[in-house]
């Protein structure tokens, strides 16, 4: 049990739209252990984003229980939710969601600003370290519009890392990126995972899911399959292959 990071019990989310009730998530039970790299797959409307939002404490479940790192989040207040997001979770979005007209460094510093415990004293040093981990030290004073999509996503990953969270949640992190940069991002994820960081990501493409260690498939708000990946892809090798392909095309 020590090793369990995420555990949900009959996690349910129902939206009300007028007279209709939309059951976005129906009694989802999922357990994620420390050090795992999980890919959640499913068509649009399958409830994977809803699950991510609940796991990320961005939203509250209609019913069911959610334990994160041993804490039962179901009984928490909004402010405690904010603290959990700040301390335990690093979010990576499809659309990067960086503050415009704000440098990469300042974007990465953002979560530290809302750290109530102020356990990290030197914000800038910590942010520089996070940017170094994603290989963007030389771009830290650039603003998002001066960075490529891949670089922006790496800034977002650095921001997710900066507070040393228990888990990184990535919602279609490569949805806006071309295939080469996508593989670069997965390479980064695999490296971070090798360093012991737990990652849960949502993806559309089965090929990309094979970079993870485990795949969870969803349909109509339910988890329909949960399996280990046997033919796992090594992003570093894959990267060399797609780069070679790209060169041939040119």
């Amino acid at each position, binding site marked *: 049990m020590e090793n369990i990071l995420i555990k949900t019990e009959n996690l349910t989310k129902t939206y009300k739209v007028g007279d209709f009730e939309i059951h976005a998530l129906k009694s989802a039970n999922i357990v994620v252990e420390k050090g795992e790299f999980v890919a959640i797959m499913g068509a649009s409307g399958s409830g994977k984003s809803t699950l991510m*939002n609940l796991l*990320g404490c*961005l*939203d509250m479940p209609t019913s069911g229980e959610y334990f994160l790192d041993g804490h039962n989040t179901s009984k928490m207040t*909004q*402010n405690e939710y*904010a*603290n959990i*997001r*700040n*301390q335990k979770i690093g*979010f990576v*979005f499809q659309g990067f*969601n*960086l*503050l415009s*007209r*704000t440098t990469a460094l300042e974007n990465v510093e*953002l*979560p530290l*600003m*809302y*750290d109530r415990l102020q356990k990290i004293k030197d914000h800038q040093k910590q942010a520089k370290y996070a940017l170094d981990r994603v290989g963007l030290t030389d771009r830290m004073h650039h603003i998002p519009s001066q960075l490529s999509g891949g670089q922006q996503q790496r800034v977002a990953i650095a*921001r997710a890392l900066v*507070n040393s969270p228990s888990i990184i949640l990535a919602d279609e992190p490569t949805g806006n990126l071309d295939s080469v940069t996508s593989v670069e991002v997965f390479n980064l994820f695999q490296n971070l995972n090798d360093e012991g960081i737990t990652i849960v990501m949502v993806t559309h493409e089965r090929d990309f899911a094979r970079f993870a260690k485990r795949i969870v498939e969803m349909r109509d708000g339910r988890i329909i399959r949960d399996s280990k990946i046997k033919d796992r892809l090594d992003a570093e090798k894959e990267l060399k292959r797609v780069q070679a392909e790209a060169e041939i095309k040119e």
Partner: protein
Amino acid sequence: MQAKIILKVASKSIMKARMRSLLTALGIIIGVAAVVVMVAIGDGAQQKVEQSIASLGTNLIIITPGSSNTGGVRGGMGSFSRFTFDDVDKIKNEATLIKGVSPLVRSGGQVIGGVGNWFTSIQGVSADYLDIREWPLQSGEFFTDRDVLARSKVCVLGTEVVKNLFPNDDPIGQQVRIRNTPFKVIGVLKEKGQTATGSSNDDVILAPSRTVQDRLSGGRFISSIQVNAVSADKIPAAIAELKSIMREAHKIEPGMEDDFTIRDQSDLSEAATETSRILTILLASVAGVSLIVGGIGIMNIMLVSVTERTREIGIRLSVGARASDILIQFLTEAIVLSLTGGLIGVAFSFLVAYLLNNYTEQTAYIKPQIIMIAFGFAGAIGIFFGFYPAKKAAALNPIDALRYE
């Protein structure tokens, strides 16, 4: 979050949209400047009025002969002239709360001297008179108590008289003939301007009271007695004292009406101050309206800003900002905007006041308190009109905010 970080984030957001911030603050700048300048103009006017009232002699008390009551037939004020030099001497000897006392013996006539002749009023007064009226000399000297007792034929001219009789040379030492009596000019009064009723203060000749009485007016009586109290706050006590001295001098039995009237300048100054105070309030409230309009401008822009920055709010929430952090951030932005606007507005009002004072007839006087009030009001407007948009921003739910396009 620490206050330092909050301020940093707010000022950064303001600087990111410089033009918009400036336009937003402009409402407050104009509002604050308008309030400060308007009140300054009102205060300037008030100061002017107070100065002109002070020019009458602030501690001045005038005793005039009251209505007579002879056999039940009551005349009007001054209808029965009963003041004599005995009254003046009694006041001089007995009153303790006064600095000086002077009779006023009025006369008038054709004055010949210098380049021609001139009709003017001649006032017989004591040596204390200039002090009582706070009226300085321009040149020469004033007559003394000895001159009064000796009935010296000396006089002091007002500037208007000098202008008409001695336009080119120094009148001091020269002779003028007033109704055939020669007087030696020993001094010239400083120009004083108009009286409250519009006639000139400067068209006058002052001479020793006894001399005027003997040579010009004749008769025993004097038209009024002028006294100055030792200080402004002693005026009521001095009036009471003068009243009892005069009643004794005129042997008025208890229960009988006074046969004299004692007045000071407070009625006049109160009325004038009240008028300019109302003017100030009127000007300030008109300007205050523009300050409120400026505040609405801030609210308007902040609301637009909250909508436009919904995604930013979502990002901040997703990395751990609490609703209160968002509220404080937007509120701080509104307050920083309005206080900066207030600061610029105050600076601007100093410029306007400087221009008014140096290039126009209008005087503007900026009191330190009004700066504090206008500045505080700008801050209050920032809080008041910034709160609703900030509250709206803080009420956003992170998922909706992140999804917002």
